[in-house]
């Protein structure tokens, strides 16, 4: 029993990097606030008020973390397979657009229309991952380069299509380049009523919509795939060692192409909330950077589909904290981004140190 507790201690130590990193970066934030001549107490009060002070604020964090989670999940799959998909930003833009096309042009009843737009969003994302995946598998061309390029191509393509053939801009409405409005059958409903009925007072302005369900299903499915299926085992094996995998008869190329496209498919889901629940139309001006955030979210959580629940919530918290900071003090928003970067650095570095410490402790235990 004592030994068991010891092992748990080592495990806890191994997992504590995010907490230590969070506290350390908050300490840095305090110093910055003081350096700017602000009162840290007031500033942190602002953060608190805007992020976790009540049920409504917590609901907002949950809402914001949905796209973050999906973006992180997309990266988890790719990184587990040793594929450095830096392209989920582009996959997300293309996926959203393909989903929106289905949402605008396919007249379907709601019970069909919603699954169809979800599937089309995934297909769009997977499609955008397909070419870099093939280039990597067939010609060994680094996916880091191709996916970055494909991000640019995606943005240019979306820009062209939304301003051109797919433009739904009507005179006198809005100047924002956009597609036609989605058919009402494709719109995601909200779950706020459900949450209220179980006693969580989620205000109307917070979007807890069907994309939350999509995120939960996707998370469970990816977890199951990675840890309970042979394909998932092969993905993790390939990500651990291509040499060993090839030696063991695993078809490395096939596994990586599959993981790459699945990563793209999940990336296609990132925009669901903004397009199908919040805006109701597709635009070139979707929140940018969500794809890249997924890399950090996955990294912090050591590419764990469970861990990214917390790291995506952390990112959502930081976003809200930034608003609070701006409103209640003179700390500029750019500081929040800096703190985000510092936090990631802290967590990754501390994690490395803790893993080494845990390893030597374990060795002691074995010996």
């Amino acid at each position, binding site marked *: 029993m004592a030994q068991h507790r010891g092992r748990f201690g080592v495990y806890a130590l191994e997992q504590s990097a995010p907490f230590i990193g969070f506290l350390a970066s908050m300490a840095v934030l305090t110093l910055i606030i003081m350096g700017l001549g602000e009162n840290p107490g007031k500033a942190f009060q602002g953060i608190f008020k805007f992020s976790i002070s009540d049920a409504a604020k917590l609901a907002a964090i949950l809402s914001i973390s949905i796209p973050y989670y999906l973006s992180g999940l997309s990266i988890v799959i790719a990184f587990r397979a040793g594929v450095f998909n830096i392209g989920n930003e582009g996959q997300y833009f293309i996926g959203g657009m393909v989903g929106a096309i289905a949402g605008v042009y396919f007249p379907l009843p709601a019970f069909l229309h919603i699954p169809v737009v979800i599937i089309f969003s995934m297909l769009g994302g997977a499609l955008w991952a397909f070419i870099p995946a093939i280039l990597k598998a067939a010609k060994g061309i680094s996916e880091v380069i191709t996916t970055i390029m494909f991000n640019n191509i995606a943005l240019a393509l979306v820009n062209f299509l939304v301003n051109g053939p797919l433009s739904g801009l009507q005179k006198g409405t809005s100047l924002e380049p956009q597609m036609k409005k989605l058919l009402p059958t494709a719109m995601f409903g909200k779950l706020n009523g459900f949450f209220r009925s179980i006693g969580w007072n989620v205000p109307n302005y917070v979007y807890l919509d069907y994309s939350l369900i999509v995120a939960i299903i996707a998370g469970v499915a990816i977890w199951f795939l990675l*840890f*309970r*299926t*042979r*394909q*998932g*085992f*092969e993905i*993790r*094996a390939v990500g*651990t*060692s291509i*040499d*060993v*995998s*090839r*030696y*063991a*008869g*695993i*078809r490395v190329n096939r596994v990586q192409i599959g993981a790459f496209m699945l990563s793209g498919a999940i990336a296609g889901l990132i925009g669901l909330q903004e397009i199908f629940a919040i805006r109701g139309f597709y635009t070139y001006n979707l929140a940018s950077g969500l794809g890249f955030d997924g890399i950090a979210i996955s990294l912090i959580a050591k590419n764990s589909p469970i861990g990214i629940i917390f790291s995506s919530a952390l990112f959502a918290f930081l976003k809200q904290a930034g608003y609070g900071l701006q409103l209640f003090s003179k700390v500029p928003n750019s500081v929040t981004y800096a703190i985000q970067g510092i936090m990631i650095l802290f967590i990754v570095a501390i994690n490395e140190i803790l893993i080494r410490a845990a390893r*030597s*402790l*374990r*060795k*002691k*235990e*074995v*010996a």
Partner: protein
Amino acid sequence: MSDALLEMREITKSFPGVLANDHVSLDLRPGEILALVGENGAGKTTLMKILYGLHRPDEGWIAVRGTRVSIRGPRDAIRRGIGMVHQHFMLFPPFTVLENIILGEESQTAGVLATARQSRQLSALMEENKLVVELGARVEDLSVGIQQRVEILKILFRGATILVFDEPTAVLTPQEVVELFRTFRAMKAQGRGIIFISHKLDEVLEIADRITVIRHGKVVETMDREGATKQRIASLMVGKPVLLEVERPQVTPGPTVLEVKDLVVRSPRGYDAVEGLSLSVHAGEIYGIAGVEGNGQSELVRAIAESAEVVSGDILLEGKSILEDGVRERREEGIAHIPEDRQKYGLLLPFSLAQNLTLGMHHKPPFATRLSIVNGKAIRESARRIIATFDIRTPSEETPANALSGGNQQKAVVAREMSANPKLLVASQPTRGVDIGATEFIHRQLVKARGEGKAVLLVSADLDELMALSDRIGIIFKGKIIKEIAHDQAVKDEVGLYMTGEKAHGAA
């Protein structure tokens, strides 16, 4: 002991959880060759790393020529006249021999390299130590044996009087070993001291003046060569009596299992590494491949067990060509493979031992259901069976592979490949870097496979191993089998001559 060239006294070094050296003492006299023997993990390497300044001892001290010294790094070691020839050479392949040797010690005249004087110096060193190398040759064009000479010259050039050799013969042909030992004797005659680390007890008994045996971080005994026997050293190393000879019961070979016909294999570097090679291995037969490394062995193995680029020719398993098959199909058809570099190819280190023991079979029932769901219970049960059968020492089957000792990792790979119940077992350098106990285990497994009617293709750089185990030995030279010798006709020196191409096919 003030006449000693080197004294190490009561050296103790612990790493988290391991006492690598426990009050180890040894001394080396001028003009002496001291052999340091012990199993993997016995603490030889740690001791030598301390001597070379790569580790600091927790306790104990080192004295060179009677003066206590503190060695903080290789630079300090070299200044004190301590040099080391590593198993993996520290050379720049595109540079010439001369450039490699003088690197960091260049003498200049007005900013221009003054190589003439240094090459004269080197010529003298080569002469004295019987180490002939062409100074202008590029290192990448040299054989492993010659590269080793460059390494030795490098440390002699830096004035080493104490030379440490970490398993120097592991990569050499018998002839090269003879020449290395000639150099050893020449250096000895000049009053230099040599510490010789080796697993090969025959060599130890041939060249060493004294032998220090280390086990579990402690010196078990230091003995003179006179009176030392292989049996005694091996038992001291392992801590219990060891069977050095492998018993090979009579087996009548069955039908042909593997047939390689006029095979040409392109190496990843673009040239044909295997050029028209033919051989066949029967059921119940161990076919050994002898040869100097780099003559196409790795490419041949890759062509059979993996899918290297075959230019022409054919590989047949029980009469059917396998050229079109991927690794998975080949495994399913009954080819098992103990890879040369087990650290790199054998195990998924962060994964559990159980998962590693089913790797390669993981995609089939019972380990994965038809719907591809992983069956953890079947994997663990199979693993427990393999662990028991092959006596793998592990806390449990859930232990990650990287928590196992090196020897047990090796065992795990062998156990997995054997338990797949193959028709053909391809074993590539199966005992390289493996200690006596595990070597014995692996040899027994190979002989057992032979007894069960499996065909075994054994590639090894260790001639003794090949001669002890193989029913036939094929000597590979420049991508071809140039000679096949039956078990009872194999003579070590003759095999060695074929390996270097000095004796050609038919000239026997």
